[in-house]
């Protein structure tokens, strides 16, 4: 579906480079919801931009490749590499940015904006028919028809976000990328939107990548998850397995920092801050905050270990317990 192989990327600031993404490899399979979790500044939004082919100076990819595979109309498999993916936007791949509710034009009605975007991909259809289709689609997503005639400021944040998701899924793209889709919204609306995303996914059987720093959100709707820290993927695996059997110390600490209802035991946040990506440490990037860190951790970056066919983590503590994943080996599909 979408495969990232050893992708590294950096920002070119005049005097120096900021290495935001370091050697990230994973695959998003068909018909699944993949979550990317991590604290702010870890590079998850930037990773989405790489996946969406949003690469513009001063941001550049230094190594690795992104490949998007999709089934064409006649059943043939089309492959697109980075550089070509941008031509498939809104068709095979779509993107809901962070704070998407702010990207709506404040002086145009929603209906007009919707029509503007989708009419470019449906040139053969006449205006009335397209508008009818839009209204029907919005109704399916439980948005009242008055939305078409409203201006963005008349809608609540949750509604605007739902409109954005409707826009992103109207063309039935095979892959949808959502960057913090519910961060600014309260829990009830969040639940509604995540439910909507889940329903849409089940209906058209596409794949969704959700980036969020809230692990609770990941638990509720993702099938597989990747944990990012300081520009690297430290653990990838099925969501249930990650929550019940986290292997990387950072994943363990993240899960422990979650407050839960009914549980008022003392919770601890993770102390310290992520390393500067301008001059990252030579060893494991989490070593400075890790309670299990050893001298080796500070000197040598860990390699990836297989916990199971679908679960992998990068940590020196796993050496000897699990087989190593060689760099040339393909990442397994489940």
């Amino acid at each position, binding site marked *: 579906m979408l495969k990232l192989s050893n992708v590294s990327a950096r920002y070119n600031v005049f005097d120096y480079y900021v290495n935001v993404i370091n050697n990230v490899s994973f695959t998003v399979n068909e018909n699944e919801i993949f979550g990317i979790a991590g*604290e*702010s*500044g870890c590079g998850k939004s930037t990773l989405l931009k790489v996946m969406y082919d949003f690469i513009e100076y001063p941001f550049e990819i230094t190594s690795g490749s992104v490949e998007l595979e999709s089934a064409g109309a006649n059943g043939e498999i089309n492959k697109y590499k980075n550089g070509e993916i941008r031509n498939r936007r809104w068709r095979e791949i779509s993107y809901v940015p962070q704070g998407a509710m702010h990207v709506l034009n404040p002086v145009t009605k929603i209906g007009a904006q919707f029509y503007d975007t989708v009419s470019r991909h449906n040139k053969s259809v006449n205006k009335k028919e397209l508008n009818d289709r839009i209204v029907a689609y919005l109704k399916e997503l*439980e948005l*009242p028809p*008055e*939305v078409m005639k*409203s201006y963005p400021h*008349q*809608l*609540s*944040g*949750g*509604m605007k976000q*739902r409109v954005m998701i409707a826009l992103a899924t109207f063309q039935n793209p095979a892959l949808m990328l959502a960057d913090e889709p519910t961060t*600014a*919204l*309260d*829990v*009830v*609306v*969040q*639940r*509604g939107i*995540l*439910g909507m995303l889940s329903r849409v996914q089940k209906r058209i059987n596409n794949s969704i990548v959700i980036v969020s*720093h*809230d*692990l*609770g*959100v990941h*638990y*509720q709707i993702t099938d597989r998850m990747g944990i990012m820290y300081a520009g690297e993927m430290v653990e990838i695996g099925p969501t249930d397995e990650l*929550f019940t059997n986290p292997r990387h110390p950072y994943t363990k*600490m*993240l*899960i422990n*920092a*979650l*407050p*839960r*209802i009914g549980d*008022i035991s*003392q*919770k*601890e*946040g*993770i*102390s310290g*801050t992520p390393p500067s990506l301008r001059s990252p440490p030579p060893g494991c990037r989490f070593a400075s905050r890790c309670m299990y860190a050893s001298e080796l951790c500070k000197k040598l970056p860990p390699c990836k270990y297989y916990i199971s066919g679908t679960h992998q983590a990068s940590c020196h503590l796993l050496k000897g317990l699990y087989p190593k994943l060689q760099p040339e080996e393909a990442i397994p599909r489940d």
Partner: protein
Amino acid sequence: MTEYLLNVENLSKSFQFGGIFMGSKIMAVDNVSLRLPKDNPCITSIVGESGSGKTTLARMILGLLDPTFGEISLDGRKLKGFGKKEFYRLVQPIFQNPFSTFSARNKVDTYLYETARNIAGCKSAALADEAVGRALDSVGLGLNQIKGKYPNQFSGGELQRISIARALIPSPKLIIADEPVAMVDASMRMNIVNLFKRLRDEYKVSFIYVTHDLSTAYYVSDYIATMYRGNVIEYGNAKLVLGNPAHPYTKLLLDSIPKVGQRWSKDVVLPDIESKEYASESCRFAPRCPHATEQCRQSMPGLAEIEENHLVLCYKYHTEKNCPSM
């Protein structure tokens, strides 16, 4: 009534949109009453979704917005009767966005020193240094880390802690925090929320914690008030309200928290376009409520006391004895 630190009585705020003839009126805060005990510092959470009126309520208590109706009293005296500096010595705010709390063009410590000099009454530079240093210490930061730096040199979590330190300098009795952890990372939130608990115990400060995040509210509050579209729909001791939620909306809120270990079972009815909901004279939650009756759609219920320290605004709980106003 000097036994209350803060006494909010029948507070309402309405906003007028459009002109005099064609405009609409929104009751952002509708007939809210709240009390904070005097010598017993506690953390009161005001929980609600966006548009519930909690920020408007917080701004009125801070004196940044004038109420349309109702009275706010601090320590028995009306809010209007306070001089500015006197008021700032008692009440301090913490805002949601740590990056806009400080001007990007000024060094962060200027605000700390200003507070120390103007409100905490530090006459000399040495005293001001001491006061600022102490406040920063209590939030886990050092004066040397902060001195001379601009806001863009800090992370969101650090800036928010500096904001808390600034609020602590005059040793206020009440701190009003408007969504203080909304823009802070999940891993940092617990640090800040734990800080509130510690400050309540060590510095004897009461907090009003406005948020839409029920998990942190449950973890940290002594009292909790849930708001929906301008009304306080449930209010009382936090353990009672969250352990035994009465109002259907509180139940919905509790249920919608993404819990680890339990997946959501059914779907929710999402709110309609806002202007429609605000205009109604009935119970505002009725369109989404699974238990709504005709009475709910006709008129607004009154506050009922279902047990001590637990009040609900819902017809379901009205009996002759617990709702004397009916």
